[in-house]
């Protein structure tokens, strides 16, 4: 009992700490209020345009979040180095939401309080949905780099498009069609199996379209297996696939999981080539050359396509860009800049409602030249991009052909 701190002392100490906390919080709030006041003043006098960048920088999905945020930040900094937008510098406000929808919304409102005029984010589906629901109230232009759920931009229940939300990544289930055609026509496969993650529109969409097209082309789908988010053991599903004897396996998932799947396929003796979508970018560090032999995937960007971007990324962050999310973040920022440029050209005041609407209108009607191809937005605010087929030579991705 001697060693324990008494309640009285503890309360006193806690009180001091709490008071200090409250004081700093108040200090913080007043300074941020001052900052936002200053911002509107500054914006009026034409100094800076504030852009929010939101993503999980810590937590288990931060591997994607960091890539997106780094990619986007890189693009915005480059814009500043090039002299800004019509002479105005971009002020980047980036925050960490830890992959949690609740924090994502509080972060977003904090950014709004600080006077952002557009948002790059969020990264994973659940927080992006929450932020999208909140951002509608502000009519805040918002470009997500990587949230693939259809419902982020389009509400199937009410058949309405979330006017202010755009997406830079594919949800494009068209990749599934493309890979099915390629597998049948170019590679001559007739028996295929599919393994995909359940509950994610990207994975399900690709798998569904692959199956439809592959069968339309006269092939047979011998097995369809799925798994849930967070699974690490795929041996069971792969064993089932092995038992059905396919010539190829379509695996439209993200690279870390694909790495696990390939390693486990090898260990149970399933050695047929695998096919995939653009989620495979970054896979080369996670699978051996042997495992990747004769595998193909379609993507709109893969390592080596833009030396400028890759060297700039390395110069900025001291490492190679980790996965396909970095170029997508970069493109999301490019999209936002495109919209801001249009709003600036129209001579509107940064942060105002007309300004935001101008940004949205410009993006919706615009053609964006990004790293991942030149793209426009369709009626659901999804990008329409061209695709290349890539394969692996000695475990490194190589462009095979445009298809």
């Amino acid at each position, binding site marked *: 009992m001697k060693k324990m701190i008494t309640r009285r002392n503890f309360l006193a100490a806690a009180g001091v700490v709490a008071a200090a906390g409250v004081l700093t919080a108040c200090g913080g709030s007043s300074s941020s209020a001052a900052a936002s006041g200053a911002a509107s003043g500054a914006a009026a006098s034409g100094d800076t345009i504030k852009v929010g960048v939101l993503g999980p920088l*810590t*937590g*288990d*999905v*931060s*591997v994607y979040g*960091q890539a997106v945020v780094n990619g986007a930040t890189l693009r915005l900094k480059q814009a500043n180095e090039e002299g800004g937008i019509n002479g105005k510098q971009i002020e980047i406000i980036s925050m960490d939401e830890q992959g949690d929808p609740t924090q994502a919304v509080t972060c977003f409102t904090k950014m709004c309080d600080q006077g952002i005029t557009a948002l790059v984010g969020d990264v994973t589906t659940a927080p992006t949905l929450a932020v999208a629901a909140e951002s509608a109230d502000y009519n805040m232009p918002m470009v997500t780099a990587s949230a693939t759920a259809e419902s982020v931009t389009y509400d199937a229940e009410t058949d309405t498009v979330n006017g202010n939300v755009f997406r830079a990544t594919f949800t494009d289930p068209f990749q599934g069609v493309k890979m099915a055609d390629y597998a049948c026509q170019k590679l001559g496969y007739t028996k295929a199996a599919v393994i995909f993650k*359940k*509950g994610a529109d990207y994975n399900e969409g690709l798998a569904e379209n692959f199956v439809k097209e592959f069968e339309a082309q006269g092939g047979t789908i011998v097995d369809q*297996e*799925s*798994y*849930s988010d*967070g*699974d*690490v*053991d795929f*041996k*069971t*599903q792969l*064993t*089932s696939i*092995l*038992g059905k004897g396919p010539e190829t396996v379509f695996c439209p998932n993200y690279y*870390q999981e694909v*790495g*696990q799947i390939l*390693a*486990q396929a*090898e*260990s*149970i*003796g399933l050695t047929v080539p695998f096919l995939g979508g653009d989620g495979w970018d970054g896979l080369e*560090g*996670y699978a051996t050359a042997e495992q990747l032999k004769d595998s193909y995937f379609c993507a709109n960007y893969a390592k080596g396509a833009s030396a400028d971007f890759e060297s700039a990324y390395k110069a900025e962050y001291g490492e190679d860009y*980790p*996965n396909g999310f970095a170029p997508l973040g970069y493109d999301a920022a490019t999209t936002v800049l495109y919209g801001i440029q249009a709003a600036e050209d129209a001579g509107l005041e940064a942060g105002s409602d007309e300004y935001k609407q101008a940004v949205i209108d410009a993006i919706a009607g615009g053609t964006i030249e990004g790293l991942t191809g030149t793209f426009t937005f369709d009626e659901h605010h999804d990008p329409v991009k061209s695709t290349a087929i890539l394969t692996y030579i000695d475990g490194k991705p190589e462009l095979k052909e445009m298809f």
Partner: protein
Amino acid sequence: MTVFFSQLINGLSLGSIYALIALGYSMVYGIILLLNFAHGDIIMVGAYMSWFVMNQLGLGPVTAVCATIIVCTLLGVVIEKIAYTPLRSAPRISLLITAIGVSFFLEYTAELIMGSGAKVIPAYFAPKTFYVGKVPVGLTSIITLVVTVLSMLVLTFLVQKTKLGKAMRAVSEDMDAARLMGINVNSTISFTFAVGSALAGIGAVLYCCSYPQATPTMGSMLGLKAFVAAVLGGIGSMPGAMIGGIAIGLCECFVSAIGLSAWKDAVTFAILIIVLLVKPTGFLGRQVQEKV
């Protein structure tokens, strides 16, 4: 039929990993009645250690295995000394929260140092497939099974036949009485943690053989499953942990094999609940008499 036997082997090898981790869990629980939430994270640290030794230092797999087991053992003892010893007389829930704190600390520190992207652990040995009749059996599965059974046998011998084992049993029975009998309680508990964590180290190596990626949060679900296995088998019982682990492994595999992979965790927990309701101490757990 071939597929059925292949799935059986998958289930056994997954179950063995759970069993091995559950053994460590069970030992620690048996002695200080602590749900050691950090146990799974010790495995995570072990996996990173293997990666570090093989990938960064470029040393061989034997060194990596030794380093992993040693680091896990030391980590377990250090955690016990720093975080759990001061709380020996505190309410058990405080101990539990401390364990959760340690678990968070290990996870977030790992994330801070290693990043949250998965690190690929190089293969310890070349993958090889044998055929028993027509059923393919991976070398990994064989090694996993053999190591787990051996570990259990050695452990049972240690607990039942050696003096230290006797001390461990005495401490878990009644800590104060054991102290009166001249048993050094502190060192016995540390020893138990050391053994439990060494098992976690072996578990880390086997896990990485089958699933060669290390992430900061890999341990939390694994630890939870192992805990479920330990409870299912009867916590504190060595063969119980083994049975519980293998039961869960098989259950997961067969639920996935019939196409219900999304429900496999739910089925696992449902089985656990049913077993606990029918037999509240698990398969092989001892019935504790209520003292009035």
